[in-house]
């Protein structure tokens, strides 16, 4: 896995250089960008890390950049640094999921602390994502009929009821159910329900569609 990388975006070359130097001194991998568009173009969401963004930048400001980041598949944690920390901007940033909103000149402890939080958040999210990906991989091995049975089981229906719902006999349902449980690597219904919760497969999710969309953090 790649090293945790701090993506630094600030149009001010002096600030960019100084912050890079600081974070590198603390052992971080730093990728500085003076242009937000350049950053977006080169950004690889797969690489673990966080973004430290200046709020006020020509062309694309920090908040817009945050939106652009989260609009894609990236769940990149964002730390804002700004010269003018006005309240509305900070509220907007925090609502949009920013880790922190720091004012310039930024104390190193604040910045490092925010980055550490971003790091752990990132790790958690990554953890969740990998679990989900494992579940989804298993789900993809199911036949459509098995998926249908799965949603009905999660919804708490009995075999007989499921057979009625799907217009078949209980015996057939039992076969599907045992195959499904086997493919998912689960033994009990309780395990299945927990997994379904993680994968956000609920009783009203009935069309059997699972497109691997990442689950937003809780």
């Amino acid at each position, binding site marked *: 896995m790649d090293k945790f990388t701090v993506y630094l975006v600030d*149009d*001010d070359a*002096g*600030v960019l*250089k*100084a*912050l890079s*130097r*600081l974070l*590198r*001194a*603390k052992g971080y991998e730093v990728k500085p960008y003076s242009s937000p568009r350049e950053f977006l173009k080169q950004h690889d969401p797969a690489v673990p890390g966080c973004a430290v963004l200046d709020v*006020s*930048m*020509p*062309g694309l400001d920090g908040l817009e950049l945050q939106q652009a980041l989260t609009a894609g598949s990236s769940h990149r944690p964002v730390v804002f*640094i700004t*010269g*003018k920390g006005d309240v509305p901007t900070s509220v907007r940033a925090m609502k949009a999921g920013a880790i922190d909103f720091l004012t*310039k*000149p*930024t*104390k*190193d402890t604040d910045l490092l602390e925010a980055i550490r939080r971003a790091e752990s958040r990132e790790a958690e999210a990554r953890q969740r994502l990998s679990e989900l990906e494992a579940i989804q991989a298993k789900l993809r091995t199911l036949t459509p009929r098995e998926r249908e049975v799965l949603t009905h089981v999660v919804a708490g229906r009995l075999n007989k009821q499921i057979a009625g719902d799907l217009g078949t006999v209980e015996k057939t349902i039992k076969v599907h159910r045992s195959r499904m449980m086997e493919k998912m690597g689960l033994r009990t219904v309780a395990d299945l329900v927990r997994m379904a919760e993680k994968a956000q497969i609920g009783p009203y999710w009935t069309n059997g569609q699972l497109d691997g969309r990442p689950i937003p953090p809780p």
Partner: protein
Amino acid sequence: MTRTHTVWWSLVVLFVFAVEAHAAEPRRVLMLHAFGHAYSPWSDMAASFRAEIIRRSPEPIELYEVSLDTARVQDPKDDGPFVEYIRALLSRRSPDLIVPVGAPAAFFVQRNRSQLFPTTPMLVLGADVRRIPGATRTEYDTGVLLDLDLPAYLTNILQLRPQTTDIAVVVGNSPVERFWTSELRRAFEPFMDRVNITWFNDLTFGEMQERAARMSPQSVIFWFLLSEDAAGVPYSEDRALEAMREVSAVPIFGMGDYQMGRGVVGGPLMQTKVLGQQGADAGLRILKGERPSALNPPSVLFGTPAYDSRELRRWGISEARLPPGSIVLFRQPTIWEQYRWAIIAIAGIILLQSILISYVLLQSRRRREAEAEAVLRRREVEHLTRVSVLGELSGSIAHEINQPLTAILSNAQAALHLLAQKAPDLAEVRDALEDIVHEDNRAGEVIRRLRNLLKKGERTAESVKLNDLINSTVGLLNSELIRRDINVKLELADNLPVTSGDPIQLQQVLLNLVMNAMDAMGKTPIAERSIVISTRGKPTASVDVLVKDRGHGIPALANGHLFEPFYTTKEHGLGLGLTICSTIIQAHGGKLTLVNDQNGGAIAGFSLPVQETAARVM
């Protein structure tokens, strides 16, 4: 002596006819002059008498005048030819009246009366009473005589000049003058204890002048009579008096009115004119047939004391010292008396002009003061607008300073962290420190620009590189431009000529124009927001600066009012920005223009003259 032999005869015969009586028998009057007929004071008396009797006589007067010179000769042996001459002159027409002028002439007639018309009336004119006592007169004789109050002369002198210690008496050396010298000596005797009296009778006139020139200030000259000096030189018509006055160091007092105006101070004076008039009076009565011995006219005394104003002033004698009722002659009218109205008119004109000039000066001073105040006000307003612009920009400017501060802090902390490591990367620490220095300079630069703009001062004139000024201005606005999503493009000409001016004021203009451009683009789509600042130089003429925006342009209504004070199209504008910019550019010899761009937006621009010095390189 040749002089005594050269007796000259003078005969003046005047036929004067009264217009209405040319057929009447003329009255013959024989005037006998003791001296030549031009010796004062006798000549003066004679002239007065002559004029008067001719004027007043009802019949024509036939006047015979004979000069005897006897006063100087005074030898009865010499009378013979004169008598013969007169007898010859008047053999066929005996005179009606004989008028000897002066005592010597009277003596001559008395000596020769038996041969000279013994029954013709004789009127002695101008002799002193002391010379012609009543006992010497016949029944055909009478006289209009003088009674000179000699001590009064000295009294007058001492009253006018109490400080007088010496009096020099000018008197000649002819027989008649010798008589008077002894008379004077006697009359002046009582004054001897008060003043020294010097007698000039034994001096030549030259010697008298020499003495007079050297006399002490406390001295005066009393000029009595000078017909002939000690050397026998005759002096007529008192030219001698005038010559004396030329050289005299002291005032000269005289004895008769005939001397007035010739240099004497004045005082109680013998009255020659009055004497002549009274003589004519008596003569006319005799001609009418009155008996001479019955006439007995009174002696002529001194008249009212008279003084010569010029002499008084010359010798510093106050008019307050003059006896009451004195007459002051030759009073020179003061300039005021002479030119009163001219002076009043000129003074009036001068006064009027002075008032006008004062008024004009006052006005011009007021105007200067007002101008100075206006300059001061304008400077203050300029300063205030700069301050207010900077106030608007304060957030952005704080950001401009905050950026280097952030960089400094982070660099410093990075350096600390680096140093805390076991094997510090010193090269990196050095870089960090160098960056700190650099960033600090950057913050300092922002503050310097700010301080320049906030400076309140006299307008200066220095070389200005407009490109630098534009860079500096844009630098100051950097954060604000970012905040407003405005892209600035600079198209600055290389080798732009240097202009001359006040960099602060010019920067204020640039700041204002760029701010206007920014304000104009509030509603422009973000992608289109841009300002282009360009410079263009014409090497010998001017430097042009253009600020082009993509904003709403100039509203049609605003056209023509843009440079008026307090006109604004902005919601919170003061309406002073462009007014001040225009004033500043005009003061720099340029012109500010503002037009709409054909492609939308506005173009603000100004051109400044190129500095005339050789410095043309950027």
